[in-house]
Structures are given as C-alpha cells and as structure tokens.
C-alpha cells in the first residue's frame, strides 16, 4: 500500500477501531496489512512496539497461512494465545482492497468470545468503507521502505492514546 493511501485510509479507520476497542474491551489493538504496514492502532505507547507487533503479525499470518495450506485446513480464522495475565487474539480478514490483520491484546476485562464477536462486526465496518472496496496500488521496490513506515510516521505524529 502506498504512503498516500495509508494516510487517507488511516483516518477512516479511527472510528471503527475506537468502537472495537470500546466494545470488545481490549487493552491494545493494531490493524496491519500483510506487508506489516500499520493502518490503525490503539493503546501502544511507542512506535517501536507497534512496529514490532506489526511485523510479527504479518509474519504470523504468513506462517499460519502456509500451515493451513499444508495441512489442508483451508483459510485460518484466528489465532488465540491465552497468557497468564493477558491474552492475544490475531485474525485476518479480506477486503477488496487487500487482506488485513487485526491484533488485539486483552485481559480479564474481556473474553475470547467477546473479542471474536466484535472482531466480526469490526471487519464488516471496515469492508463497508468505500475506500476498502477498490483494489489499491501496491508499493514498488523503490518506495517500499518509505511506504512501510508511513503508518508509523502518522501514528507517531499524534498524541499517544490512553491505555
């Protein structure tokens, strides 16, 4: 996704992202694409954390996709890791523009069921945004690195949201 597209789309994702965070009662959430570009986030204190989670989410998506194909499991729906204090939910969804991946971290204030429920509705909200209903131009090799950092630059220029 190109830098100009990220700037435009990120603004339109703020409302659905805030809605998801509020309804699902998650602590931290980030929406990335398969390249690891950050489109929206809530709750991260630093750019470094967002970049790491985005890169790991994209890598996890690729691994899970490959594993699902290898085992004949078809498209994977979500990944859930229940830690002692916090839980991780990672799920991909398709839009005509491109595939996106939502990562959410939650604690005892929420449950896997609630996060799943509101993730489904969040995905519908994103798909309903007209800008996500058209195919977007991909970054070329020369501009990829700059485009990759576009979402982070945008997030860093804004005051960090409350955790």
């Amino acid at each position, binding site marked *: 996704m190109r830098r100009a597209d990220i700037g435009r789309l990120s603004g339109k994702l703020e409302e659905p992202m805030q809605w998801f965070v509020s309804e699902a009662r998650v602590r931290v959430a980030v929406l990335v694409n398969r390249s690891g570009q950050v489109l929206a986030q809530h709750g991260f204190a630093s750019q470094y954390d967002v970049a790491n989670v985005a890169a790991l989410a994209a890598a996890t998506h690729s691994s899970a996709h490959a594993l699902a194909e290898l085992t004949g499991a078809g498209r994977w729906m979500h990944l859930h890791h229940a830690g002692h204090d916090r839980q991780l939910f990672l799920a991909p969804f398709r839009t005509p523009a491109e595939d996106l991946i939502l990562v959410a971290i939650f604690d005892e204030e929420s*449950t896997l*069921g*609630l996060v*799943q*429920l509101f993730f489904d509705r969040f995905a519908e909200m994103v798909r309903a945004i007209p800008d996500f209903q058209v195919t977007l131009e991909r970054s070329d090799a020369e501009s990829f690195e700059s485009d990759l950092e576009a979402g982070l630059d945008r997030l860093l220029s804004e005051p960090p949201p409350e955790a």
Partner: protein
Amino acid sequence: MTDVMREAMARLSRVKGVRGAMVVDPEAGVPVTTELAAGVDGRAVAALAASLFQRAGQALRASGHGALATAQLEAEAGHVLAVEADPLLVVVVAEPRAQLGLIRVEAQRAAEEMQ
C-alpha cells in the same frame, strides 16, 4: 462428560418454547455444546451472556451477596436464562410465552448433572 452435556442440552432444547440451549465456558465466553434453532447466533449469545453473568457476579460479590447462581433476562421478544454449572454455564434462549418455571428446573438439573 461431553455426552452428559449434549444429552442435557438436547433435553433442554425439547422443552416447549426453548429456541436454544448451550453450555458456555464463561472464562472464554465461547460455546462448548449447543442445541440451537435457526436464527439464534450461538457465538454472540455465549459471549454476551457470559460477560453479563460475570459482571453481575462481580457486582453481587462486591455488595456482599455472595456468588451468582442464576441470571434471567426478560425482554419483549423472549428470555435468556443463565445458570451456573461450575466451572461452566448453562444458557437458554426462550420465546416470550415459554414455560419459564419448567425451563429453570431443567436448566438447574442440567447444571447439576455437569458438576
């Protein structure tokens, strides 16, 4: 145990007016076993009923009333009943004119069988 849950939910779902019966993991808010009529979104009901039950339980404990055993919601279009079956939860979705007394007895029986 799985057979016990399935049989209990099948029996509950046969009570007149019941549109759905399920065993829910309240910690995760996900269904474990379901017997649902068409149009009942089991995942959504499980997630929201578990959340409601846990919140109500927290409120009761905080106010010194002890643990929550049963929660019953009444609405224009029907009822939702949640009964603790430690560590699980039995959740029933029923029509407005359902025999609630019988449903409560059967849900309680199911919860006891599972404990």
